[in-house]
């Protein structure tokens, strides 16, 4: 009886998806095993039968019908009157990325079950170091709320760090600025599916803190970083590749040794590509992380082109873990989220490599030996050290 593994190889052989070494292995199997030849013949025959299924056509007039509907729709990506300032107006628009508790940083990997036709909701959350108290109805009401228009249009929220702006879908409110939103308003603002729009379920609103990198209060940031053993840090930026280059340079200065996965390396080297990155930091202390963020701030301030603005701090949750593990592809089994702690009296040193950089990818194909070595080489962590998922998310091309 042909083994499962051999049958799987035969299937991939039919598809022409085997590497040369495996193809040779299959040919040897076919030479030696009549059963394998018969199974291959059946697979190829059935594949032909599927291909031979006739093609079905759309009814005449399909394209015209759809185009008629499209002509009545607003143009895609069109911003209504109350829209964000361009990127360069960081100083006047508090366009920050909200980190959600549930799977936010994989939002763009499409982990939502909603199809693209269902625009996500936007919710209001408290600013800076206050906890969020606004209870939205939750993502479960997304479908019910999809086509609801807000009766009293929300306003930009004045805050100490700049004016917030609102993006909305539907009839434009006109050239005037948005009227002010009453405090504690739970109005949902429906938008077209913009990149950074994230649903924040009620139960995940607590514990999200937003800071401006460029003028952050180090003491407050340190206090946030010390709250938990895990940190999920979102860094929206202008260009993912350039921002990650800057971060890597800062890590080098801060002596945080970093492993950069092969595809990530290629993409970091090409800012034309629209790539987001995730950095997994293991066994880094809150002070070490703060030190890196302070260096990043300085570096960004001195640079000709600033990349960063705000950062969002929360904790890693189960969905984050699940999705990051998926990014590891075939190496997923090497990552253990449960880490043993080193004994304090042994005065453990920081590990040789503390950071791993991966590109966000729909179809991760990790092959780097360095990644494998990084994951396999984890030692007991220092007391009070952190596990960090740091997400660099570009918001322009």
């Amino acid at each position: 009886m042909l083994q499962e593994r051999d049958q799987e190889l035969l299937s991939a052989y039919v598809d022409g998806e085997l590497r040369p070494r495996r193809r040779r292995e299959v040919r040897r199997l076919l030479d030696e095993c009549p059963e394998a030849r018969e199974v291959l013949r059946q697979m190829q025959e059935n594949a032909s039968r599927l291909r031979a299924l006739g093609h079905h056509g759309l009814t005449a007039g399909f394209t015209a019908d759809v185009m008629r509907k499209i002509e009545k729709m607003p143009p895609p990506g069109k911003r209504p009157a109350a829209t964000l300032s361009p990127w360069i107006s960081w100083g006047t628009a508090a366009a920050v990325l909200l980190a959600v508790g549930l799977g936010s940083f994989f939002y763009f990997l499409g982990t939502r079950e909603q199809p693209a036709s269902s625009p996500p909701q936007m919710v209001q959350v408290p600013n800076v170091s206050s906890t969020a108290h606004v209870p939205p109805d939750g993502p479960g009401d997304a479908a019910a709320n999809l086509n609801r228009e807000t009766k009293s249009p929300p306003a930009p929220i004045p805050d100490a760090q700049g004016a917030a702006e609102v993006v909305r879908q539907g009839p434009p409110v006109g050239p005037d600025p948005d009227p002010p939103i009453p405090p504690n308003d739970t109005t949902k603002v429906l938008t077209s599916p913009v990149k950074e729009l994230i649903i924040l379920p009620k139960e995940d609103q607590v514990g999200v803190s937003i800071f401006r990198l460029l003028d952050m209060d180090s003491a407050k940031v340190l206090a946030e970083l010390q709250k938990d053993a895990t940190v999920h840090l979102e860094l929206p930026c202008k260009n993912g590749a350039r921002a990650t280059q800057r971060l890597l340079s800062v890590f080098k200065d801060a002596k945080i040794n970093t492993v950069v996965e092969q595809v990530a390396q290629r993409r970091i080297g090409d800012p034309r590509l629209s790539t987001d990155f995730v950095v997994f930091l293991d066994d880094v202390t809150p002070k070490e992380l703060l030190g890196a963020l302070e260096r990043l701030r300085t570096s960004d301030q001195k640079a000709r082109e600033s990349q960063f603005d705000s950062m969002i701090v929360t904790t890693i949750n189960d969905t984050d873990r699940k999705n990051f593990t998926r990014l590891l592809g075939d190496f997923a089994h090497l990552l253990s989220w449960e880490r043993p702690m080193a004994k304090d009296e042994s005065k453990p040193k920081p590990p040789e490599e503390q950071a791993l950089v991966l590109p966000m990818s729909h179809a991760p194909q990790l092959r780097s030996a360095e990644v494998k070595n990084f994951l396999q080489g984890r030692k007991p962590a220092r007391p009070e050290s952190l596990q960090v998922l740091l997400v660099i998310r570009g918001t322009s091309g």
Partner: protein
Amino acid sequence: MDTIVTSNLPGTFVVANSSYNQGTVIADDLRLIRDCLRGNTAAFGELMQRYQDRLYNTVYRLIDNPDDAQDVVQEAFLSAYQSLGSFKGDSLFFTWLYRIAINTAISLKRKQRPVISIDAGRNGHGVPEPLDATPSTRPGFALERAEEDRLVQDALHRLSPEHRMVLILKDMDGMKYEEMAEILRVPIGTIRSRLHRARAELRGILERREA
């Protein structure tokens, strides 16, 4: 004080270097998308013409109902049009479009009760145009062809949705594993094992029916 967290993509995107298509996204698709984002809806019409038949055929095989399949494809194009501003260009347009269509088809199937259609072939549904337009002179050829199609389509429909999907994308649409992984959002290893199991399952079904 409340904060609304937003940002927005600018109206530009870059050609991405996709590993599985060895370098470049189809530049012409991007040109049409760019034109559409600038207000030229006819550009979207051109994109539709490019992919609608292929998409329809895939969706039809998935849900085995021509009217529903047409609705799904229409919905997919409308959704794609609305979401066009969020297309980053780091995957092929049709991959992105397929993902929308498959999600729409899955949503549709979840809402519907299962309907068993015994005579779908004889009612005119499910009888496709022959791939080879040259008519055969052998009597009964068309009927035999229709019966074979119905046999294979029925067998396809007895597979689990996961298995059916991978066989359609691979054997009927000719996609590479990487493209399928991108559309279905699973690792390539999962595609490989699903295809193997799907083929084993299909083989068993066809053997039993033909016995």
